[in-house]
């Protein structure tokens, strides 16, 4: 696939020499590249979207509008509105048995994205190795590199339901290993970790003195098992920076609201970066987030039920088509294998798009171990899902006939 940055480079050739080598080296994300193909195509059904298909519940939008009418338009304290931090603390305690002090163990951030960036920038010394279980969310490795760290991939496998295994983690550890990024429930695999799954991981973390960035942005979206926060595993709280946010659980991606919790020493360091880069998260988003936590849990449950139904539909549908698919237990992605078709994931996705007008993201966009898979988001309506599955069925049938 041709990469757009090529054009960018041509147009501004004289300027690229000014760029930092790290930034120059960073590749545009596989998702972004695929986006260039998709945009402009008409009649496409998309399974390529990494965000809820629900619109933020009306009461949340309305609370924001009302706050604007009342003139809530100024900076808040750097770490975020105290009421919001207290509400987050209460929610984390009720939902995940986590006790954080809203005063000095928490920062409200501009999305979970900023929280991950803050954590890596605060922790990385040049050359530190950051362990990243793959396939994984697209930004961990680039942000690590920007921060001067070295991403080290730890593979996870479909046969293990994409759970992280202690022996695979241990095998990647070197004297330079410092940070482990965990993302369960996982984008793109939908894999989760149970309490029992966590215990051996916690042992490796302890023995190797790692700091963990636990990106639990999908924590509300689990189906047969309740989410277990890594920080709630005995001994792990002080070494964990918990990242979470409102994007996925409350259908609030565009508001850019997230937060990070952890040991006061780490939070203090991150707050320094946060206050000099963004000052504080936008006040409108904070007001909306507070409303979501105070009055939005029922709507959230309703959305989760709806994802669960569609999860059953897509997994069944993909298997009926003849694509093997592990049972995703969290987030809103199915991650079927397309190896049986003999195509690479990039080729499969491109042809699926051109010939069947269904967009899904090739697995290789998510780092090592993603090749041979396809990320299918089921955050879309039942009728769209049915139509997408129908089209994919015909496409795969045609492929297999030769």
């Amino acid at each position, binding site marked *: 696939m041709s990469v757009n940055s090529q054009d960018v480079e041509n147009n501004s050739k004289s300027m690229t020499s000014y760029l930092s080598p790290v930034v120059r080296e960073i590749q545009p*994300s596989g*998702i972004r590249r*695929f*986006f260039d193909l*998709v*945009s402009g*195509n008409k009649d*496409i059904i*998309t399974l*390529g*979207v*990494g*965000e809820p*298909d629900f*619109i933020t519940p009306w009461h949340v939008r309305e609370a924001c509008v009302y706050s604007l009418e009342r003139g809530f338009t100024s900076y808040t304290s750097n770490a975020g509105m105290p009421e919001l931090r207290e509400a987050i603390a209460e929610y984390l305690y009720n939902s995940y048995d986590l006790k954080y002090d809203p005063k000095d163990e928490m920062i409200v951030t501009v999305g979970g994205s900023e929280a991950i960036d803050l954590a890596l920038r605060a922790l990385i010394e040049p050359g530190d190795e950051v362990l990243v279980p793959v396939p994984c*969310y*697209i*930004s961990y490795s680039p942000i690590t590199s920007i921060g001067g760290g070295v991403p080290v991939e730890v593979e996870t496998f479909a046969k293990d339901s994409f759970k992280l295994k202690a022996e695979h983690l241990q095998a990647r550890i070197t004297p330079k290993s410092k940070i482990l990024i965990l993302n369960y429930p996982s*984008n793109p695999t939908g894999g989760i970790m149970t309490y029992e799954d966590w215990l051996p991981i916690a042992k490796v973390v302890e023995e190797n003195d790692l700091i963990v960035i636990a990106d639990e942005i999908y924590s509300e979206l689990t189906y047969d098992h309740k989410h277990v926060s890594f920080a709630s595993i005995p001994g792990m709280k002080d070494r964990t920076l918990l990242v979470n946010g409102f994007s996925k659980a409350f259908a609030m991606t565009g508001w850019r609201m997230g937060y990070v919790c952890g040991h006061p020493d780490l939070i203090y360091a991150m707050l320094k970066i946060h206050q000099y880069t963004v000052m504080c998260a936008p006040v409108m988003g904070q007001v909306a987030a507070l409303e979501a936590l105070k009055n939005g849990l029922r709507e959230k449950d309703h959305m989760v*039920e709806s994802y669960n*139904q*569609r999860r*059953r*539909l897509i997994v*069944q549908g993909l298997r009926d088509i003849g694509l093997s698919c592990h049972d995703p237990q969290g987030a809103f992605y199915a991650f079927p294998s397309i190896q049986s078709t003999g195509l690479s994931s990039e080729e499969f996705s491109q042809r699926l798009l051109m010939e069947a007008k269904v*967009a899904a*993201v090739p697995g290789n966009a998510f780092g090592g171990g993603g090749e041979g898979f396809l990320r299918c988001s089921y955050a879309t309506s*039942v009728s769209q899902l*049915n139509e997408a599955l129908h089209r994919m069925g015909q496409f795969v049938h045609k492929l297999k006939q030769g």
Partner: protein
Amino acid sequence: MRQISELKLKVLDLLKEDARRDPNLLATLLGATPEEIAEAIAELEEDNVIVKYATVVNSSKLDDEKVTALIEVQITPERGRGFETIAERIYLFPQVMSVYLMSGAYDLLVEVEGRNLKEVASFVSDKLSTLESVLSTKTHFILKKYKQDGIIFEDPEEDRRLLISP
């Protein structure tokens, strides 16, 4: 009446969204067998929980637009039977779409549909207000329907997401 199980409540939710969903789809969505779904639906129908499978029509899209009025009715309740007899007399008229017993300033709210204004008006003056226990009526014509049965007619919230995102 049988206990309403969680499965039945979920079946109801899905059928309220779209009554034409077939039992196989419902079974997949809810992780149940088609037999369990069929049985749940059969019981819901038997118990009159599901009363009818209806189509919500945006009649402003049709040429032969009908006229709908909401009529506030004040009545003298009957000894012994309260409002039941009079409510029944009213709801039996085919023009009457719905009848609700209300708290507050009046007793019954009656929704009437007619081909035109005159038809509704004559129903009110000839049939409704002449009933013995009816004290007074107040007729409100509906000018435009924005939302009905939870469905927004004009501007359903559209999907504004990008086709691909992380």
